[in-house]
């Protein structure tokens, strides 16, 4: 199980990596989405907002989200560090989502692009 701080650090890094990559920024350009990341074994979740090609993260739920991602804190932390493939975790039923498949697809695409950027050398 990851702690609240560990999960927050993972999401912060995810957002930082997203902003570093021109391809990820380009992929965010046409996407506005409020995501609620809920670790089922922690007290509090996070809101990841994508708007105007920028991603921001806040503690708790700020407004009604377009997408909810639920899962154990350990798996969520691994996903946001790009150490684990979100699609496999989702297909195994470990991570659950609520929202439109377009948003799920875009979030997964964002993870893939960040991963590719991190390992392109």
């Amino acid at each position, binding site marked *: 199980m990851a702690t609240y701080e560990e999960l927050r*650090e*993972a999401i912060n*890094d995810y957002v930082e990596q997203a902003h570093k990559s021109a*391809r990820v920024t*380009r*992929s965010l*350009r*046409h*996407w506005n989405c*409020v995501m*609620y990341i*809920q*670790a*089922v074994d*922690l*007290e*509090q*979740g996070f809101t990841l907002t994508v708007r105007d090609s920028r991603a921001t993260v806040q503690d708790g*739920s700020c*407004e*009604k*989200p*377009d*997408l*909810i991602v639920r899962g154990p804190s350990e798996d969520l*932390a*691994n996903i946001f*560090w*790009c*150490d*684990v*493939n*979100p*699609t*496999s*975790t*989702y*297909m195994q*039923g470990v991570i*659950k*989502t*609520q*929202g*439109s*498949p*377009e948003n*799920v*697809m*875009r979030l*997964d*695409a964002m*993870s*893939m*692009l960040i*991963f*590719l950027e*991190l*390992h392109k050398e």
Partner: protein
Amino acid sequence: MNTPVSLRRVLKFRTVISTSTGLAFAAIGLLSCVQIASMLGGDSSWIALTIAGLLAVLAALCFSELNALYPSAAAVRQYMNEAFNENFSLIITFGYLLTVILVIAADSYIVGSAITYAFGLPDWASPIWILALLGLAMGANLRGIKIAGLLQDITTYALLVFVISISLIALSQHGFQLRMPFDALNHPDALISAVAIGVFVFSGFEWVTPLSEEIADIRLIPRGMFVALGLLLIAYGLFTEAASNLLPVHTPAVANSPVPQMLLGKAALGQVGIWLMLITTLFTAVMTFNGGFATASRFLYAAAREDTLPPLFARLSIRYAVPSVAVIALTVSSAIIALLVFLTRQFQILILVGAVLEAVIYVAAGLCVLRLRRRKPDAERTFRIKGGALIPLLSILVFGLLGVAAALAPGTPGLMIGAPLIVTLAIFLVSALYVLLVVPRLRATAAARRAATRRRRPGRETSGEEVTPGL
């Protein structure tokens, strides 16, 4: 613990119904209805359709319980994975994917033929229209254009209104008088074959289950499927009765026509009927292309991300986050099948193979229900079929028999007995060989790549087997 958070936007019940109805209402369904009418005497085709509709309820019940257990967009893939194993799940899901491609191919062929017929163009214009339509659908999908929500509802309900209205007008021409409405009961062998095709007419209604991630109450999914089956029975039933009432459905000219719906429109309302039926056919294509492309391309993308398809299929259009290679591959596959059908004029094989594939899926759904009840007896289910194992067992038995009936295809003119069986076996053989021989290699390559990757998470920076990064 976490306070409950609800989605800003959830789908309404009317959209659940329209999705289930729209995905099942394909142009190939109209041709299948005329095939059913041509197999049975008089105006008795309603019997086959009603039986098929009631049998589809068995499958709907099984899917409702499975969806209640796993309300996920992964749907069939996840049910079969949990109930059996990954290989079984992949073999069946790849077969299922082919049903989607067959329907897209069939619809492009039918719509291309309908446009050619409506404008009085020469026959060679059909393949041009087929390619143009598929190109248009591909372009729209690559740009992430999708008909959803209210527009989808309007399209589906307008489609139903058009089909029902034209059918009623056609039936009124003979004062709603039916000829030998119970004749099918005297020919049980033909009735069974007709019911087998009828199963294909309703197929696709279950593709609504992935919507369970977009609604507030997943109990709306079973309700939506049952309402959709009722609407489909009314629309298809009236269309079939109208066709058998007004057209010489037993003649090869109608039974083998790729545009019997246009012939019905013309017989009922003349040129106006032709235009109305063209609009109806275009609506069916819009729904098929809209739902089919999105579902199938996302499946291909997810399969590539899971290392069960080559990484190429996970390639994205960055701007629209659309799996571009998957969309192009689907278009090319559908175009090849549609052009083959155009050249051979053998659309009946598409209907029969589609019927067998759907029967296999429904049998598998029944097996999954029984297996998961044993494996996960205490898991929470918001929907559980009453009557113990009766319904899943009935589903396995009935769809198994209907699958055999469709696979053997006795009495289908111009088609060798057993041809659909050979094609279906070939599909599953290829799928099984791919899953057993190619997928392990893809996974081994991906595992080697993972082993060379250092973990980024602080405190866990080693490379390891549990690391399953993106591509």
